[in-house]
């Protein structure tokens, strides 16, 4: 009983974060005047947007968010961080395939041709950045999964993870802003603010190095 209560309280403490990273994109989605598509496609779009938003939230669901770590314990933060990472990176990994789903439903361009077209239109900077981000994202996920098999020092691994994430997220946000079907001004502002705050949290941790102390305090 007491355990449940404790858990509830922890989730309650994370609520503002989820409100920001799920609530805001949801609100922006419904407030924006996007051309209506099929329920399937709109669901896939929304899923992708939420997945991306939650990946942005990862900046704040990590050691970098000292306030949160203080409130809910590092192990719990890590658990959530891992959960969101694995689940939603998988969603984002699938998003190029979501895009070509309509091509399975008509007799025009074949899904294969559409996918090839999609990932080979190199004269578009947004697409190139998307490919960069996709690759970085894959590496992030694989290295996280096999973290202990890599036999890296914790700090080395953490630095590697942070820098790769930075490359990923900057390329990804740029990619989303330049190509996203639903990237209107409101969404762009949301992404940029989230990215800027995330990078700030990261820099604060790495450049000013107060982390080790604060962690010991936990």
């Amino acid at each position: 009983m007491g355990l449940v209560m404790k858990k509830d309280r922890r989730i309650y403490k994370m609520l503002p974060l989820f409100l920001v990273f799920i609530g805001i994109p949801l609100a922006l989605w419904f407030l924006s005047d996007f051309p209506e598509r099929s329920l399937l496609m709109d669901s896939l779009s929304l899923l992708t947007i939420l997945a991306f938003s939650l990946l942005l939230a990862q900046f704040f669901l990590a050691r970098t968010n000292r306030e949160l770590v203080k409130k809910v314990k590092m192990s719990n933060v890590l658990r959530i961080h891992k959960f969101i990472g694995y689940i939603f990176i998988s969603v984002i990994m699938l998003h190029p395939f979501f895009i070509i789903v309509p091509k399975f439903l008509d007799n025009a361009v074949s899904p294969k041709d559409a996918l090839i077209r999609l990932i080979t239109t190199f004269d578009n900077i947004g697409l190139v950045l998307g490919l960069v981000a996709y690759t970085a994202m894959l590496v992030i996920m694989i290295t996280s999964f096999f973290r202990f098999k890599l036999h890296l020092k914790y700090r080395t691994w953490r630095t590697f993870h942070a820098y790769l994430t930075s490359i990923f997220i900057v390329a990804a946000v740029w990619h989303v802003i330049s190509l996203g079907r639903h990237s209107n001004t409101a969404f762009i502002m949301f992404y940029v603010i989230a990215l800027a705050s995330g990078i700030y949290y990261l820099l604060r941790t790495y450049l000013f190095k107060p982390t080790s102390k604060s962690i010991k305090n936990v």
Partner: protein
Amino acid sequence: MAIESINGCIGCEECIKSCPTDVIRLDPKTKKAVITFPEDCQICHLCRLYCPVDAITLTPEKTIPVIVSWG
């Protein structure tokens, strides 16, 4: 109004090439397809059918009243 919007364009130019009436052009800066001459859209949907990412939205309405033989 005929061809209404292009969202999520990847700049592959399929729609530009496949439009029989030259309605869509590529924006040289953004490298994206732009609805440039919507008044010439014949609402044939070829652009949408050729688009690999289903980015194009069309509606059956036309802003300029159309001339028909009777009716």
